């Protein structure tokens, strides 16, 4: 039984050590806990969320903070694993006693943390997970979605595509939740807006598929008018490279959500295919408003790179948190939520509002097509067409109906 004795000694000493470790927060601050993936391919997006957030928080704190309190934040790397993310969120709530949670690009983690936030009654801002369930089926009072979801992206794309003459569509994408959700959203809405549209076939590949050529040959053989590509993450770049290598981009036009966005185009430099249709919720060079230019300059000075769409999300989330507490007048979660509902703030892309009914941020969508631009060492989105939120957002009734199910 000596082992047991040793074991107890160990356990006690480790737990003791763990208890001594001080909480990393000072008193009298507003505490924001961020759980996100900072490992693996997703980091390309999450780092911008964090940097955009930091930028805004530093500005707010320099002006004396909110209600005389500074905003403090701490990050946890969930490594794209929902179980770790959930346990970290618990740690932030129970041990660090954060006032607000935000984060995650992983829909699985976002849904799990959202469920926890509901139980613990902590406001949770979803920054880059795109599942429609977050504010739809699984939506509740304590969750806010600060970026577009698959349904929104699909509808925005459908609104723009319905005006084009294409009839025969082919669907292809990453065979996982995000891919199917976005493809379904586009197709359903496209059929609603233009009944002549038909789907002539589809192909799905495994997430992280390294070689798209076989699928592309299949599509070329079928000769559709237009292809909808529902990929995410590194699949965006991989597909565009394959589309260029096989000549798909010159033969058949195709669309990818965020296909015209910096995160997809910058890594490819001048080699990205031209003529790819895409939708993005932020472009640092469009619209050319003073507000947008100011934000880009600020971000570039701080981090020596251009902001992606995710940077805007982080930047605005910080401001909504600050303004929410300011309007509530006290650090009280219920008052904070009440204050945020329907709140509109100026942003680099014009005024943005959080919808009261479902806590979704109303974002404009930019539909454009990739082209070269002598000003940059990468391709940009051209012929940009703004799809304002009112033209494509699901209505409150539609969202609330999902919640009742």
């Amino acid at each position, binding site marked *: 039984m000596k082992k047991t004795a040793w074991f107890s000694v160990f356990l006690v000493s480790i737990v003791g050590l763990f208890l001594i470790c001080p909480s990393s927060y000072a008193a009298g601050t507003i505490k924001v806990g961020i759980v996100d993936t900072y490992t693996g391919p997703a980091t390309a997006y999450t780092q911008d969320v964090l940097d955009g957030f930091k930028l805004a928080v530093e500005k707010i704190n320099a002006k004396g903070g909110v209600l005389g309190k500074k905003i403090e934040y701490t990050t946890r790397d969930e490594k794209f694993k929902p179980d770790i993310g959930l346990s970290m969120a618990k740690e932030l709530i129970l041990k660090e006693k954060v006032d607000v949670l935000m984060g995650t690009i992983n829909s699985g983690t976002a849904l799990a943390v959202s469920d926890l936030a509901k139980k613990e009654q902590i406001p949770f801002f979803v920054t880059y997970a795109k599942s429609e369930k977050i504010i739809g089926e699984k939506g509740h009072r304590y969750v806010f979605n600060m970026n577009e979801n698959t349904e929104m992206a699909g509808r925005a794309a459908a609104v723009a595509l319905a005006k084009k003459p294409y009839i025969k569509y082919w669907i292809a994408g990453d065979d996982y939740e995000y891919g199917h959700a976005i493809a379904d959203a586009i197709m359903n809405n496209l059929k609603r807006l233009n009944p002549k549209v038909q789907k002539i076939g589809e192909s799905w590949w495994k997430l992280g598929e390294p070689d798209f*050529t076989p699928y592309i040959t299949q599509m070329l053989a079928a000769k559709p008018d237009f292809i909808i590509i529902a990929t995410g993450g590194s699949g965006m770049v991989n597909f565009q490279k394959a589309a260029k290598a*096989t000549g798909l981009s010159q033969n058949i036009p195709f669309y990818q959500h965020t296909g015209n966005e910096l995160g997809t185009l910058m890594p490819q430099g001048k080699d990205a295919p031209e003529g790819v249709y895409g939708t993005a919720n932020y472009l640092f060079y469009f619209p050319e408003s003073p507000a947008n230019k100011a934000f880009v300059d600020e971000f570039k000075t701080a981090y020596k790179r251009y902001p992606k769409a995710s940077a805007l999300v982080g930047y605005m989330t910080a401001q909504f948190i600050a303004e929410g507490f300011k309007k509530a007048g006290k650090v009280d979660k219920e008052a904070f939520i009440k204050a945020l509902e329907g709140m509109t703030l100026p942003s680099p892309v014009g005024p943005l509002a959080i919808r009261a009914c479902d806590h979704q941020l109303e974002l404009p969508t930019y539909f454009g097509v990739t082209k070269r631009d002598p000003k940059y060492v990468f391709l940009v989105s051209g012929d940009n067409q703004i799809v304002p939120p009112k033209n494509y957002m699901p209505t409150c009734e539609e969202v609330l109906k999902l919640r009742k199910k």
Partner: protein
Amino acid sequence: MDFIYTFLSPGVLSQIFVGLSRTVILFIVASGLSLILGVLRIPNVFHGSLYMIGAFMAYTICSVVGGDAGFWLALIGAPIGVGLVSLATERGLFQYLYEREHIMLILFTFAISLVFGDLVKIVWGAEYKSVPVPQVFQGFVPLFGGLPFPRYNMFLLFMGPVVAIALWFLVNKTKIGKISQAAAVDREMVGAVGINVSWVFATVFVIGCFLAGLGGALVAPTVSVTLGMDHSLIIEAFLIVIMGGLGNIWGALLGALIFGLTQSLGILIWPQFGIVFPYLAVIVVLLFRPTGLLKSTW
């Protein structure tokens, strides 16, 4: 007859060819893994990390040098860089661990892969990287009823046999190859005849890792170079090696062929579960030939 025509339709043929070019990458990486397994008996989990590092190094060389010269330089420089990293790892760590149990070595190499994963992030950052396809191989050639086939994939198809022949030459015709073959069977005997086994092992290890780096450099122009590209590859490489027979380089080739082809044809048969076919192939092979298709070295 109709069936055969359908089967040999341009779509299927081109699918097979694409499967083959994927096979080349798998073969190059798996043969390195197999070499190390066969001679050193190390199940090298961080082989995948070396593949990733090879791709990142290729990116760095390409962006510093630029143009086609950059690509060719990367094709040589990145594997050499990976070789140097592995040499340091072998001399610094592995040479003390050869006698340990496999399971220890697996965990040890897994630990190194964790460390390398984070080091890559520290060195190269989180952004996606992209290596341009060299000018010579840009575009595509029409093949099989006009369906396009990328030039770069042609180049990959050419590289596969080149590497296979080079490896065959190395193992069967050079001194180091013969010694390592002997060491794989009986390392005490090799030591007894006065050969420094430790350095033989180091050389074989570096050659194996060189191949991982080469695989990474070759794959770089076709994909986005990202963190985490090691994770899916390493399991596939292990399965190929097991399927072919541990330590057998031709086995690695055969395994890679089966893996690549079942994957690309599986997609045609049942798209949603295309991912499942290579695994099924492994299971079937191991059920009938428990130690792999070809003779394993241990």
